[in-house]
């Protein structure tokens, strides 16, 4: 299962990914990408790779395999 992940700190909302993968990425009210939470279907993996490669901030990545589980914050 391949998932798209966004680093929201790195993302500066330039929006190249929005044009390259409109099927999985849509803009919010301020132009920042909202990523579809479901895994990327096989037919879109190539387009997803292009969107990842196009990000000038390297904020987007593709993740395969088991998702990491982590304690979120100090409590």
């Amino acid at each position, binding site marked *: 299962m391949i998932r798209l992940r966004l680093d*929201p*700190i790195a993302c500066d909302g330039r929006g190249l990914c929005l044009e390259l993968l409109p099927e999985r990425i849509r803009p919010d009210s301020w132009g920042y990408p909202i990523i579809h939470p479901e895994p990327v279907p096989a037919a879109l993996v190539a387009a997803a790779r292009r969107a990842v490669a196009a990000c000038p901030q390297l904020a987007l990545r593709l993740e395969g395999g088991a998702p990491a589980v*982590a304690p979120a*914050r*100090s409590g």
Partner: protein
Amino acid sequence: MTVACPPAAVARDRGRLLATERALAAAMRLPEHRRRHGGPPWHELPAAPAAGLIQLADAVDLRGRGGAGFPVARKLEAVTRSRATPMLLVNGVEGEPLSAKDRALLTAAPHLVLDGAMVLAVAIGAAAVVVATQARTLPGLERALAERGGQDPVPIRLAATPQAFVAGEETALVHWLMARDPRPTARPPRPFERGLDNRPTLVQNAETVAQVALLAAHGAAGYRSAGTPGEPGSTLVTLSGAVRWPGVYEIEVGSPVAQVLARAGGPTQPIRAVLAGGYFGAYLPAAALDRLLWSRAGLGQWGANSGAGVIHLLASSRCPARDAAHLATILARESAGQCGPCVHGLAAIAAGLRRLAAGPPGALDRELAQLHLWMDEVRGRGGCRFPDGSVATIASALRVFADDWEAHAVGGCVAGAGAAASLAGGGR
């Protein structure tokens, strides 16, 4: 914490964490601390200390007291999974503007926190302990360390932190200590994988660490002698707003909020609402105060959580719409400014609330729909949980003060025009 002290209350010695009715300036010295809690508690740890402490923490379902309520045992497991020697970071930053309990605890009972730090450090085999808190809290800790005379089994360092809201977030704190940048980091590794000195790092809130000391010193049975079967122990709360004696109080988990309000001299005015948990909490109607029990279960019934232990009373003479708009404005200002949805979204939401509170904006339904859309677009989209916590509190304000938003939309204010926001000056 510079509040008048009720003379009768100080004599009532009911605390586990705090020896007096309220956290006052005087620190408990080491000899008195040892009389109350016994010898250094890390001597009591079993041969396999990590497993033993994990079992003990699970036995009382000990949760973090910094706001997220994460199980202590799970964090212990995570940080001991690696073969690398870990670090322990005691988080006493307390960025929550309405909370004073961690600093009160570090000031009034420094040895309890330091004992707990040693129990954790020995259990996980830590290379060192760092206690991080705001600069004004450090002198008391320095005195306490001097009293201990270097007898602790693991070296302890103290570190001063910024006062910013987000600076207490776990990744922000590690970021500050490693690179002098107090902003959260979103990318792995997480602190339990690689944190201080590039070692796996266990980060625990200061009150949580003191709870570990109590647990190690008095055992699971002793720990369970307070609280409820599901949520044993005691906890610290910070009372503020329209209450006679604001300050930090220790209560049994599951006890009625009305009880601690009575200890604090009761409300000074008729109450409109209570902000439970803190800036990352929930507004509840005043009617909740009669029945509300301070526990995950009790607060959960009202859609709230204990958060950082804040109980802020909002007087009915205040305008809750302006109060909520003010809170949203502070939250927007305190964003670390890194993630687009948090920066732009919280600013837009705060401006929307200010427009509504200033009234009359016209079509209330449209304004509210816009606010809810923005909140949906902000939730879950930050590098840390700051935007989520902020939006949850704002959503509760829209819910609980529905009548007030409506009144403002037609140019009126239930609380009377010109009421100032109580959060501006009523905090501490």
